[in-house]
C-alpha cells in the first residue's frame, strides 16, 4: 500500500496536528521551534520518533514527555448531596486564590494534584450531587491536566480543524458536508478527477487521500495559481503529486471554443512574494495563520507582479561600472532562468489542456466562493457520461439557479439539492442528551449524474427535463407548495 500505516512515527519535517480535547492545531515538526498551543509553550523535539497518537505532558522546561498511564482513583464512597437547593453561588466557595494556584504550578506540582487541592479547598464540593462532582472534576482536569496528543493529519482531522478555526477559508464547508461530497462523487483510486475549489486546498487534499495516489487530478484555479496550504498538511508522499495537474479557469473558454494557446500565461508566482490569500470577505474571523512557517512559495497564490517592472528595478541601481557588468550578467542569467521556468509552465499547461480535451473525466467536484453556475456549465463539458458531479455552495440560492440552468442544458439526471444536519451527543450513564450547541449550517450540495448530451435536439432535452422533474399536479392551488 502506498499509504503510511497508522502506526507511523513522528518525523522532523512532518506536518503534525496537536490535539487537546476538541481543539486542533496544525504545526510543522521542527527542532528548537517554539510552539504555542492552548496557552502553553513547548518544543516538539522530544516527540520526534514517537508514534502518532501518543499523548504528552508539557514539562516545566517546555519539553514534551509521554504521559504515564494513570491509575484510576479508587471510588471511595464520596460524600455527595442530592440537589442544589442550598448551594449558593457567591464565588467564594474556592478557598485557594489565583496566587495559591500559581504557586502550586510554579512548584511543579502536577495537574492531578492541583485538581485534588481544588476539591479539598472547595466548601461546596461535598454538597454537590455525584453528577455535579463528576462534572466539576472533569472541568478542572481539563484546565489543569494539560495533555496534548499529536495526531497524524487526515481528512477527518483537518476538515474538523479548519471548520472550527478558520471556516472562512473553506467557505464554511462543514466536515460532514465534505464527507458527503467524497462519497456522492464516488471518489476512489483510479479516477480522473476535475477539482475546482477555493478551500485552501482542503478539498483537494481530501480527494487525493481517497484516491491513494492512483489516477489523476486536474485542479482548476482562479487567478495566478492554486492555493494548496491545507494540502501540504496531509503529508502525502511525493509520487501523489506526479499526477496532480492544474489548469487556469481563465483559459477554460478558449479551450472549449478551440482557441486555446499557451502564449499568455497566468501571472508568474515570484519566489519571494508573500502569500496573499484571498479572503472571501464574508467571515469576521481573525486571519490567524494555522501554520507557524511560511509555505513553499511554489504552492501559494502569488501576488500579481509584472515581469517588466521587475526588469526595470534591477537596471535602476547600476552606478558602478563593475557593479553594472555584474548586474548585466545576473540579468542574463535571470532571464534564462525565467525562460526555462516559462517553458516548463507552458509544457505543463499543454499537458493539462490535453487531459481536459479528452472530455472523459470520471467526476467533477466544485467547492468555491464563486457562483457555481458558470463553473458547472463549463466544467461539465470535460466530464464523461454516466459520471457523478457534486457542487458545494455556502448558500442555497445560487444552487437553485444552477439547477435550473442545468435542466435547460440537459445531459444531467438525478439532480439533488441537499444539506446535512449534524448533531453531537453527550453519552453518560443517566446523563445522555444532545450537546448544547449545534452547527447552524454546513452549506448545501447539488449533485447529479451526467448522461450523453443530445446537443442537436432541444425538444428532447426539454422532454428529458420534464421527465426528470417531479410531475406537477394539473391544478395548482397557489398555497400548495408543491405546485
Amino acid at each position, binding site marked *: 500500500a*502506498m499509504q503510511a500505516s497508522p502506526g507511523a512515527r513522528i518525523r522532523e519535517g512532518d506536518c503534525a496536528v496537536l490535539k487537546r480535547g476538541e481543539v486542533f492545531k496544525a504545526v510543522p515538526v521542527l527542532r528548537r521551534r517554539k510552539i504555542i498551543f492552548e496557552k502553553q509553550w513547548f518544543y516538539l523535539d522530544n516527540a520526534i520518533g514517537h508514534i502518532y497518537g*501518543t499523548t504528552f505532558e508539557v514539562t516545566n522546561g517546555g519539553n514534551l514527555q509521554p504521559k504515564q498511564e494513570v491509575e484510576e482513583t479508587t471510588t471511595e464512597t464520596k460524600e455527595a448531596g442530592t440537589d442544589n437547593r442550598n448551594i449558593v453561588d457567591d464565588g467564594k466557595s474556592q478557598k485557594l486564590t489565583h496566587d495559591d494556584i500559581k504557586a502550586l504550578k510554579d512548584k511543579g506540582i502536577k495537574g492531578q494534584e492541583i485538581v485534588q487541592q481544588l476539591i479539598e479547598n472547595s466548601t461546596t464540593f461535598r454538597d454537590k450531587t455525584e453528577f455535579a462532582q463528576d462534572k466539576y472534576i472533569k472541568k478542572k482536569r481539563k484546565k489543569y491536566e494539560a495533555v496534548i496528543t499529536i495526531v497524524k493529519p487526515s481528512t477527518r482531522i483537518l476538515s474538523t480543524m479548519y471548520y472550527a478555526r478558520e471556516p472562512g477559508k473553506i467557505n464554511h464547508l462543514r466536515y460532514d458536508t465534505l464527507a458527503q461530497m467524497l462519497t456522492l462523487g464516488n471518489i476512489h483510486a483510479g479516477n480522473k478527477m476535475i477539482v475546482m475549489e477555493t478551500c485552501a486546498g482542503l478539498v483537494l487534499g481530501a480527494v487525493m487521500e481517497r484516491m491513494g495516489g492512483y489516477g489523476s487530478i486536474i485542479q482548476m484555479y482562479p487567478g495566478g495559481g492554486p492555493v494548496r496550504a491545507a494540502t501540504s498538511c496531509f503529508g502525502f508522499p511525493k509520487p501523489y503529486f506526479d499526477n496532480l495537474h492544474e489548469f487556469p479557469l481563465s483559459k477554460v473558454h478558449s479551450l472549449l471554443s478551440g482557441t486555446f494557446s499557451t502564449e499568455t500565461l497566468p501571472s508568474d508566482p515570484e519566489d519571494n512574494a508573500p502569500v496573499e490569500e484571498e479572503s472571501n470577505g464574508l467571515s469576521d474571523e481573525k486571519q490567524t495563520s494555522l501554520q507557524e512557517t511560511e509555505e513553499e512559495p511554489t504552492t501559494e497564490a502569488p501576488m500579481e507582479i509584472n515581469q517588466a517592472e521587475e526588469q526595470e528595478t534591477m537596471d535602476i541601481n547600476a552606478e558602478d561600472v563593475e557593479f553594472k557588468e555584474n548586474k548585466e550578467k545576473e540579468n542574463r542569467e535571470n532571464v534564462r532562468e525565467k525562460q526555462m521556468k516559462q517553458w516548463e509552465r507552458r509544457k505543463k499547461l499543454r499537458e493539462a489542456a490535453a487531459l481536459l480535451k479528452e472530455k472523459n473525466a470520471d467526476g467533477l467536484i466544485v467547492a468555491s466562493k464563486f457562483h457555481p453556475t458558470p463553473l458547472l456549465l463549463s466544467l461539465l463539458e470535460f466530464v464523461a457520461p454516466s459520471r457523478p458531479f457534486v457542487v458545494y455552495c455556502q448558500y*442555497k440560492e445560487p444552487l437553485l439557479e444552477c439547477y435550473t440552468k442545468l435542466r435547460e442544458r440537459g445531459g444531467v439526471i438525478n439532480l439533488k439539492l441537499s444539506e*446535512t444536519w449534524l448533531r453531537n451527543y453527550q453519552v453518560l450513564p443517566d446523563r445522555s442528551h444532545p450537546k448544547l450547541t449545534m452547527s447552524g449550517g454546513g452549506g448545501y450540495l447539488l449533485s447529479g449524474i451526467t448522461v450523453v448530451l443530445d446537443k442537436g435536439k432541444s425538444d428532447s432535452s426539454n422532454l428529458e427535463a420534464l421527465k426528470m422533474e417531479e410531475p406537477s399536479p394539473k391544478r395548482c392551488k397557489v398555497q400548495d407548495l408543491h405546485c
Partner: protein
Amino acid sequence: MSFIEYGDTIKDGDTAIVFLGHESMFPVKVQHGSVTQTKYGVIRHSTDLIGKKYGSKVTCSKGGWVFILHPTPELWTMNLPHRTQILYSTDISVITMMLELKPGSIVCESGTGSGSLSHALIRTVAPTGHLYTVEFHQQRAEKAREEFREHGVDHLVTVTNQDVCKNGFGVSNVADAVFLDIPSPWEAIGHAKSALKAEGGRICSFSPCIEQVQRTCLAMEEYGFTEINTLEILLRVYNVRTISLQIPDLGKAAEDNSGTGFDSSNPSNQGSPGANLQQGTVQFKSGVPLREMVGHTGYLTFATKS
C-alpha cells in the same frame, strides 16, 4: 466496468443501472440474449446494451426511453435487494471519513446484512486494501459472497459466517478500522480491539437506540478506547420549484365606487376591475423541503484505539 473501476462501454456480465426518470431505477445483469421489461417496453441486451456507451439513452420497444448508468456503490445502495434494513449513503459518507478509510485500508465489518455498506467500503479501500465482513446468518453470508463475485470485487473481501460477539472477525492486529452494526455491539468491543492493529485504529458502532449507545460507550471506555464521540447525521433534500404567490386584494386607498378596485401601479397586475379572481402574482424560485424527511437512522459512535 466494475464497482471499483470505471469502464466506458457496457459489456456482457456487467451489472448496469436502468434509469427511467425521477428516482425510478433498477439494476440489471447484462447478458447476451436476455431481455428486460420496463414500462416503456422491452430492452434487448444484445442489441440495445452490449457495446453501447454508459450514459447512453436507450429506446425501448414501446417508444419510451431510459438511460443506462455505470454502477456505483451509491446507486447500488438505492437499488439493491433488501435482506435487512440497510445503511444509506448519508451515514456511509460520515462513517468512511471518520474511520479515515482510503486505498489500502484494512477494514472489519459486522454484520454484512444486505451488503450496502460493504460495497462502499470495498470501493474505498480498493485496489490494495481488504474488507473482512462477518455475518451470522448463513444465507445472507452466502448471498453476499455471490454478489461480490458477480460485481467483480470478491478479491477484495472475505465473508465469514460466524457470530462476531463470540468468535470475533477472524483476524487479529491487522485492521485500520472496525465497524459494528449489530444488536449488542458492546459484546464485540473486545474482539474489535484485538482485530485492530497494535499501533492503533478507529472504531465505529451504529445503533438505533440510545440505550445500546450507552452500553457501547461504557464498553469502549473499559477497553481503553479514547476520543469516544457520538453523533447523528440527517439528510435534508430540497425540491427546486417555481412558486407563484397571489397578491391579495387590499382594496383601494380612497373610498371610490368607480375605479378599478386595486392599485394600478402594481406591475404584476393583470387587469379587469370588479369581481376578478385572477389577481396579480409574484413568481420566485424556491428550494422547497419535502413533506417528510428521515428523522432518525441511528447513532454513530466513533472512538480511537491508540
